[in-house]
């Protein structure tokens, strides 16, 4: 360890280090720590920037958050939404990446590019297109499947419909991530397994999969962070309806902050969400047994 790092620090190293560290500290202080501080203090206030109200409330915003039925509905929805979408994203991504990776498929980069298309398309547009496809009378989905389901207005299917759309949009991300992971696997381990007469499934299960663990963790954590914050698809496709069946936590925040201008309440909700995100991220590190 000691050998690797050079013991002598040159002048230029100290200068470069100081510049970079100071720049980073200043940047993150100004654009993260200070805003977080302001928001944190604000979460204890009745805060409406338009009417100019800023009155101390103590813990009332937090109490309101936890005693609101809508909050719990939305937390349950967010949980279902995130877990289902993440599982499908990971499994579908891995399966398809492995299929493309296997030597028997031609046009690898073509497939890779096709699956990545939805990832780079703005969510606003995608949500509108899918809203049309879910239309009970003119929608492609009912016509193709010969069904008569009012997808977005049926409490049994509304959240499911939004989840299917999200999986469609995002699985390509996991495909590309896993392809990257697969290409960088050490070939000698796979060769050795072949020599030992392991079946394709055994090789996958006992060698490939464990080697891909860091990538899986990476995909899961970035997914947790982004899905807990998802709201655009709800805003466009269901507005939380029918009733409150598809409310997600972030959608409430958007609604409270930029529609109702309850900045204080919205800030309190944001902090609750932040803590939850942190806990889940930490949990996934723990479950996977990785430190750092």
């Amino acid at each position: 360890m000691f050998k690797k790092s050079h013991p002598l620090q040159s002048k230029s190293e100290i200068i470069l280090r100081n510049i970079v560290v100071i720049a980073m500290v200043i940047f993150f202080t100004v654009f993260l720590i200070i805003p977080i501080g302001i928001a944190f203090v604000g979460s204890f206030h009745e805060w409406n920037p338009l009417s100019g109200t800023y009155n101390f409330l103590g813990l009332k915003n937090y109490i309101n958050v936890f005693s609101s039925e809508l909050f719990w509905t939305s937390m349950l929805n967010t949980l279902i939404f995130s877990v289902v979408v993440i599982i499908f994203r990971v499994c579908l991504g891995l399966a398809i990446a492995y299929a493309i990776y296997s030597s028997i498929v031609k046009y690898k980069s073509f497939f890779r590019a096709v699956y990545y298309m939805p990832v780079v398309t703005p969510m606003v547009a995608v949500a509108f297109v899918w809203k049309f496809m879910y239309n009970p009378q003119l929608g492609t989905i009912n016509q193709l499947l010969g069904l008569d389901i009012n997808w977005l207005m049926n409490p049994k299917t509304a959240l499911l419909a939004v989840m299917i759309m999200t999986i469609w949009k995002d699985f390509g991300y996991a495909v590309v991530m896993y392809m990257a992971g697969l290409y960088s696997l050490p070939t000698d381990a796979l060769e050795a397994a072949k020599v030992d007469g392991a079946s394709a499934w055994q090789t996958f299960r006992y060698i490939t999969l464990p080697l891909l663990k860091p990538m899986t963790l990476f995909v899961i954590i970035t997914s947790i962070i982004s899905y807990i914050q998802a709201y655009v698809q709800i805003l466009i496709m269901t507005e939380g309806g029918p009733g409150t069946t598809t409310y997600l936590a972030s959608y409430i925040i958007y609604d409270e902050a930029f529609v109702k201008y309850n900045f204080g309440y919205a800030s309190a909700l944001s902090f609750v969400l932040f803590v939850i995100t942190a806990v889940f991220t930490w949990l996934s590190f723990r479950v996977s047994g990785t430190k750092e």
Partner: protein
Amino acid sequence: MKRKINSIILNVVLILVGIITVYPFVWMVCSSFKQNSEIMALEQHLLPQVFTIDNYINMNERFNFLRFFANSLFVTIAITILVAYTSTICGFVLSKYKFKGRNLLFGFVLATMMIPWCVTIIPKYTMIQEFGWMDSYKALIIPAMFSGFGIFNMKQHIATLPDEILEAARIDGANEYYIFHRIVLPMAKNGIFSIAIFQFLWSWEDYLWPYLVINTKEKQLLAVGLKMFNGQYSTDYGALFAATAISIIPVLVIYLIFQKQFIAGIAASAVKG
């Protein structure tokens, strides 16, 4: 023989998934050549019955869409280059230098990735107002200069570069600026590409922030422009689809060009992390 059957099945499955993936795009592009009444008509056809390019023409006349397009391209490229550079240099310092508080700083960078947008956006907005940066690209570019995600990834990536090369350069009398720009930067190329593509995508799609800080129409960005088709009583779907079709072109082009580097970069930073 068995191999051949497997190959056919696998290809068919992949093609099927591909069709499901592409179909909404085909639908969208076809619809962008339809009149609004046809988009909403009961009788649905994939191909336009009455072919019209009015949506594309109207879009530009009413919203000066190509201006938005150029603005977006400028801002996105500026942010992407800046973030790629700052991420690499921070990643370099955090992975190759030893100093007090390094782990603390890195842990902090990691934590920034978890902060939901909604926590900071309100205070950030008031700050930008106080700085007098409203309605200027400063407000878009400067707060986006450093990226926790970028620094994290580049740190992982640069950590995999062998120390020996840096040491050799140092012994040859190279200073740190030289080492960073001439040795680390080229060697971390793939990582930089992957960060750049992620960043490009995010900035290109980012909606809420540019929308809040940019007022003048001439300066507005594309993602915000997409929302302009939402009227008080109705949505102009034809124009929306036309605009979307155009707006995804640059991201697709950039992705297609740099695909290989992108994947290699992700592999290097994430797998070994």
